[in-house]
């Protein structure tokens, strides 16, 4: 990979070259490193990968039609690999309010921020990203319908970037969807940065529904300012080896954030989620709920940390990880953590791992529901708590359909 890309990198972009050197210099992750504990680090070796090649017109056209997930949206961007499919759409009403949706073309935003162990991949994303998307919502503007970003991964590497800036008191619902074009093994290194300015209200849903040969690293930075509210829901429905790093930085007094997630890990799949809830200002709140359902030989890792800075008094921060083992060969790992440097706080974490409750199963069986259906209903019930946080009925029902296909 390295030689080919060495040539591809344009010498007119010194920043990118610098990041590329950085990427090559940084060591591959090893599971002895706390930040990668329990992970199958070998699967993240980059090896002989090339950037996904440009697709034919016909293929792009096909993807464009497959990208209609929601009937109503205020804006949409569709990408395949590192290429834009069709054009970026923003309806007239939204555009008139000053909302902008643009491509970064050959000039990705290069800004290194805190990672939870994935700094090598941050450098890789910065070095190779093309056509990153930038969305800005001006102060006091409410975007009526969701803005949808769809990304299709082909064979080889994709390096999508998404930058979102919600202005003062702005309101936005953002939907990020990641799919595979076909059965090719993709390598996806994505970066999402969202800044919710004072008083804004940002709701975000991320759906990852790849083929089982996909390896992915997604680095998320969520910044919440004074009195803003941010809701972020991650739905890891399908994929191969996934690492998701979510850094939530609660920067303003009175800020509030809800992070939630569902992961369904089956045979050969490993979903590794690392989170940081960093409270840097007083009177703020954050709540995290990550739920995993594990099928035969599926693996999940949840490693979460709540950090409360000395000045962040009156913080309420919670973290919950629930693992439902649906097969004896599944493997669930939890590393819930707290680092509290202020004293007037309410912080807690809880992690549980268990099976379907026999009593609940018995109750349903005694009412004539067969064993398989009863189990399914209980599993779907387990997910529902997270799904209903999305508050977009059309999207929720699509998500339920996708989840159901995992249990057929």
């Amino acid at each position, binding site marked *: 990979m390295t030689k080919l890309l060495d040539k591809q990198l344009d010498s007119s972009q010194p920043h990118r070259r610098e990041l590329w050197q950085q990427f090559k210099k940084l060591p591959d992750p090893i599971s002895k490193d706390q930040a990668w504990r329990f992970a199958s680090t070998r699967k993240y070796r980059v090896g002989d990968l090339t950037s996904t090649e440009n697709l034919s017109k016909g293929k792009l056209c096909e993807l464009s039609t497959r990208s209609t997930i929601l009937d109503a949206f205020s804006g949409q961007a569709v990408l395949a690999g590192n290429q834009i499919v069709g054009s970026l759409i923003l309806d007239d009403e939204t555009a008139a309010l000053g909302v902008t949706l643009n491509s970064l073309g050959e000039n990705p935003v290069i800004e290194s921020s805190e990672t939870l162990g994935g700094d090598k991949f941050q450098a890789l994303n910065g070095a190779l990203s093309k056509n990153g998307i930038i969305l800005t919502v001006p102060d006091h503007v409410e975007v009526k319908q969701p803005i949808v970003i769809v990304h299709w991964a082909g064979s080889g590497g994709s390096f999508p970037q998404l930058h979102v800036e919600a202005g003062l008191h702005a309101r936005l619902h953002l939907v990020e969807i990641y799919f595979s074009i076909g059965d090719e093994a993709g390598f996806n290194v994505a970066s999402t940065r969202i800044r919710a300015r004072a008083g804004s209200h940002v709701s975000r849903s991320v759906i990852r529904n790849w083929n089982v040969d996909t390896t992915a690293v997604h680095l998320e930075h969520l910044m919440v300012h004074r009195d803003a509210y941010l809701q972020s829901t991650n739905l890891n429905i399908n994929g191969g080896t996934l690492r998701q790093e979510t850094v939530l930085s609660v920067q303003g007094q009175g800020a509030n954030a809800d992070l939630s997630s569902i992961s369904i890990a089956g045979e050969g799949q490993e979903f590794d989620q690392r989170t940081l809830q960093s409270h840097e200002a007083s009177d703020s709140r954050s709540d995290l709920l990550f739920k995993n359902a594990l099928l035969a030989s599926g693996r999940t890792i949840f490693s979460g940390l709540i950090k409360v800075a000395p000045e962040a008094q009156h913080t309420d921060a919670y973290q919950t990880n629930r693992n439902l*083992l649906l097969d004896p060969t599944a493997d*669930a*790992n939890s590393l819930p953590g707290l680092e*509290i440097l202020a004293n007037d706080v309410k912080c*807690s974490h809880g992690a*549980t*791992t268990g*099976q379907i409750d026999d009593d609940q199963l018995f109750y349903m069986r005694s009412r004539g529901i067969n064993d398989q259906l009863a189990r399914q209903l209980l599993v779907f019930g387990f997910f529902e708590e997270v799904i209903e946080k999305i508050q977009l009925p059309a999207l929720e029902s699509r998500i339920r359909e996708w989840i159901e296909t995992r249990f057929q």
Partner: protein
Amino acid sequence: MSATEAIDLDFEKGNFHYDTEYDFDAGTGLSEATIDYISGVKGEESWVRDFRMKALQTFLDKPMPLHWATRDLSNIHFDKIRYYLSKGQTPSRNWDEVPDDVKQTFERLGIPEQERKFLAGVEAQFDSEAAYSRMKDDLSKEGVIFVGSTEGLREHPEIFRKWFGKVIPTADNKFSALNSAVFSGGSFIYVPPGVKVKQPLQAYFRINAENFGQFERTLIIADEGAEVTYMEGCTAPKFETSTLHSAVVELVALRGAKIQYITVQNWSNNVFNLVTKRARAEEEAEVKWIDCNIGSRLTMKYPGVILKGRKARGEVLSIALAGDGQHQDTGAKMIHAADETTSNIIAKSISVGTGRSSYRGIVNVPRNLKGCKNNTECDALLINTNSRTDTYPAITVRGDGNSVQHEASVSKVSAEQIFYMRQRGLSEAQAMSLSVNGFVNDLVRQFPMEYSVELKRLIEMEMEDSVG
């Protein structure tokens, strides 16, 4: 309450030392010569010496675990430590035979008094070797062995060699390797099948010399159906330079046996207390660690139980109090290795002033097991605005019908509670100390009476300077 007055320890009680002339001194620093010296004065068999030499190599090869542990560890200067100091290798059986200066030390700490009152046996270790060791005669008639590590390996190799270094291998970590190289003192206990030792056995560990490293080694074997409770207490005077205490404690509970191991650690706050403690529980055996950490500069201690037999049970109850400048890095490890094993961890910590308390734990249930359960609760209380607490558990669950739950919370003493008590005439310090005692009360109640009273008083004293 009256029965306990005699042994109420003063918080400053451990803070004194006598100038003592040592007959045996391995000098400063660690090399093969140090080990030759220790092994020589103890008259050890060649396998023990080989074991030590190998361990020294492991110790030198292993890096400091700085990728996860606190940087404070790099302040330990292994070349400035004295690894062996003693007045002789044979403990006295009669209190009158103990050298005067050593006797004074333990009398000030109340050791013979305690023995008369409620202990079945006691061992008092002064720097490297036991100064005094005695057990009630009826217990030795039943076949209970309670001796120091030197004597245990020399007199009863057929019992102790089998398990020595088996629960905690030399290479477990850097400090278990160090202990394996230079160990001296500690208790070796064997309780024969079916024997239930009703009163606790106790050991008291005392560091007296500056720059001294204490490396005691304890091995307790409870044979089938046996029961034993062991208590240890630790103190050291305050010196200008830091001191190292690095023990290895191995417990073996054979089928149906019960071991309870109680520690009240009150080292002065220049002691690095880096201890490896682990138990192996066979079928239907029960091991309970009750661990209370109040003193030291840095404590790193994670008592563990390997649940090796079906229906074995492991428990860790832990209280940590981190005062100004202290770091209590404590926790528990539960390694489930058989069906239907259960474990319970309850850890409570209090951080005062610039104190920092950390909980670190491992719960592991592998894929071939059925019906295992773990419950973990960690609660932290923060007293001052500059206090700090961390929680870092690691939980891995596989297999069939296993369930694990972990909960942790962080809070401060509620202003309403303090207000309520102040209204009724209590001073702020009294109110605070009452609240803190309430926070740990459900755990303290599980301690033997004498220890719970002492603990409450220690907490009260810590609290006195913390408010206002």
